[in-house]
């Protein structure tokens, strides 16, 4: 409990730090909302026109005043209004978030369903040709950039078979689960592939270590079947590094998978924040990054709690 309270107390402090860094960083980059909207035509503006536009975009004050105002609104539950969308930042984020969450969950399911069995299989067939095969595939999976995989999948399906799930118009899972799944499965496989490769490698090596442990030998000598030894005794302990890896990967995916979202034309958080940066939509960048940071912290906390469940020897907060 103490541990949990301690972590929760640091949440706002970390978020405040993140918000300050993002606020300053996005303003340090050359160019502003005006040049993002007008391009080189911005040079045609008279000083008075420029002032009017700066006031419209809310960038007419020194940065610390802008930050103070933003912080003040934040404590009143207001993340500001996006100038691109003309709507509250939080509304825009919450509209995009379900897609990102779904994509992260699906690609994690793909990765774990493929990666854990493959890792266990390779570990139990250590140094045999089939182990080598799994390791080679995992190596290829880890080193293939996902834009290559995504484009290759799209190309093969559309040019080779003349089929492709509907792209461009995204259907949410609540509207039509089947269409939604057909739109999400390719991006999830694309993202999950490299992730599955990492899971395979880490579960293989963890499994190899554990199979040498005394308690596994004890279980074997007591006559437990090979299957029971592997799945009941060894695997739960081998899963701890997999949970760590999945936690890191999952929180990373919650920040949006920019490249995969671009390729498959999915309106997720990754594209939202990228477009917001390119269009210098300051309020939207700040709001989205803060939201992502919050999610990462929540996931990390959940991962820590999961350790304790998986391995009773781990007691959180005890020194």
């Amino acid at each position: 409990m103490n541990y949990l309270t301690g972590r929760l107390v640091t949440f706002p402090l970390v978020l405040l730090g993140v918000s300050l860094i993002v606020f300053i960083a996005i303003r340090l980059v050359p160019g502003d909302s005006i040049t993002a909207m007008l391009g080189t035509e911005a040079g045609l503006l008279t000083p008075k026109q420029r002032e009017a536009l700066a006031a419209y975009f809310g960038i007419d004050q020194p940065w610390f005043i802008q930050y103070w105002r933003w912080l003040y609104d934040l404590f009143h539950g207001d993340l500001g209004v996006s100038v691109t969308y003309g709507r509250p930042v939080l509304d825009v984020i919450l509209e995009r978030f379900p897609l990102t969450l779904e994509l992260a969950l699906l690609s994690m399911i793909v990765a774990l369903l493929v990666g854990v069995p493959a890792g266990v299989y390779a570990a139990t067939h250590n140094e045999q040709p089939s182990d080598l095969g799994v390791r080679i595939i995992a190596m290829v999976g880890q080193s293939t950039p996902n834009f290559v995989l995504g484009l290759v999948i799209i190309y093969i399906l559309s040019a080779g078979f003349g089929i492709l799930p509907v792209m461009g118009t995204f259907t949410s899972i609540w509207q039509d689960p089947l269409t939604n799944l057909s739109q999400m499965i390719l991006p999830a496989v694309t993202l999950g592939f490299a992730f599955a490769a990492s899971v395979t490698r880490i579960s293989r090596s963890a499994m190899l270590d554990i199979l040498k442990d005394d308690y596994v030998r004890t279980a074997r000598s007591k006559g437990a079947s090979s299957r029971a030894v592997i799945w009941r005794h060894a695997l739960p302990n081998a899963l701890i590094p997999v949970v760590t890896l999945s936690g890191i990967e999952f929180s990373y995916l919650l920040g949006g998978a920019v490249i995969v979202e671009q390729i498959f034309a999915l309106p997720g958080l990754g594209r939202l924040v990228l477009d917001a940066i390119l269009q210098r939509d300051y309020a939207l960048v700040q709001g989205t990054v803060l939201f992502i940071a919050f999610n990462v912290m929540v996931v990390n906390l959940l991962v820590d709690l999961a350790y304790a469940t998986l391995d009773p020897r781990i007691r959180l907060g005890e020194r």
Partner: protein
Amino acid sequence: MAIRTTKTRLTGMAVAAMLGIAAVAAPAQAETLRMAWAQDATGLDPHKQTAFPSLRLLELVYEPLVRLDSKLQIMPAIAESWEYSADGKTLTFMIDADAKFQNGAPVTSADVKASFERILNEETGAVARANFLSIDGIDAPDANTVVFNLSQPDAPMLTAMTDINAAVLPASEIAAGSVGTKTVGSGPFSLEKWDPNSKATLVANKDWAGGMPGVDGIDISVFPDESAILAAMRTKQIDFALMNDPLIATLVPRESGLQLNREAVLSYHVLQLNPSRSPFTELGVRQAISCAIDRQQILDTASLGEGRVTGPLTIPAYASDPNSLFCYTRDVEKAKKLLADAGYADGFSTTVIAATGEPPTAASEAQVIQAQLAEIGITVEIEMMELNVYIDRWLKADFDMAVALNGGRADPFTMYNRYWTKAGNLQKVSNYIDDTLDSLMMKGRAETDPAARKETFAAFEKHLAEMSPWIWLYNSYNYTAQQDNVKGFTPTPTGSLFSLSEVTVE
């Protein structure tokens, strides 16, 4: 062969089933045009937006007084006729009595007056204001007549009025301050829904004065990756698309059932030199660079030959034969001599800035230029940067050389006044003042006789190419891809999509 196709199809269906793909390639609907592009509009205020996709979206919703056809001739839009007074200082428009806003209100002279006053008001922040500074006052003697009183004869102003940045908005919306959040235009489509960077839904305006559009609506989806657009067109999910990257656009004609529309555009690829920085202050150095550049090779290497070598004027009615311009045939020996005469026999080192992906050919162009200039001893370092960073540097003229894709206009004065007149707003970027260029521009502005204007601007172009403050390279194509069953689209040199109002899906 037939067996193989069947087999492929069966495998395809099996794969589709495995992937749980429920909706496989919906058949082309007859009524709604499904369109895709890689970049979305950046906002909805027609007086403020200047990005290419914004203009393309807004010109389907709003209308200017006059518009350009595919030959860049001025045609009626909201105005059914217009007339300059004999002294060229009064411009009178008669408004089409059938023109109606999408809220049902007729378009009147009061709306025109309010719209132009909004553009001229500095508080609005409308960049098009620079084109309308000759307007002294606007009269609305009756509901269908509007009179612009000018401080000086201004022939190019009428062309500037064809731009969607000079759109006529309802006076009521201007007064309410709702322009940009609510779209009430008088154009062929109304914007029903816009989810930025994702999709837009346009619905045909049945009351449009130009007649009923050929489709019930247009659904625009944003596909950030153009190869995904091509894939979606292959599977007939998309009827019509805009394309930017010549590497992908040129693949379209290879697909059965798809066709590519190419139209040479007014915008131009250019190597901008900065004549305020040494050694580009020297005419000989600039001319040497002009002679050392092989424009055709840049076009062939960076853009697969998709385009044509051009001088400063890209407007078909005004363009000269590029071969008649200074050093348009590469001459390395001459370049070396010019450089030596200017005191740089051993060459020098310099940098060129370019924006990543904007245009898609920017990096390749910079690399070819680097190789070509190396032949006369100029060492070029390439600095690639994000577009906004590039624009920031460009506007401050913080560069030695810049690879740029600059927008064109249908009138030479509007196109180049900003750079090559003494009072030009972007004179601080071009950093080059020349009495000859200035006086030729002023002469062209006041001149109304087309033949005399052409002659004036030809002299302007020749002199500009010879002084070489910039090295004009080529103008490329504007690409649209479509299914064979999409009929009636006419591409234009401005890249306008207005003719989507005439398109039908068969």
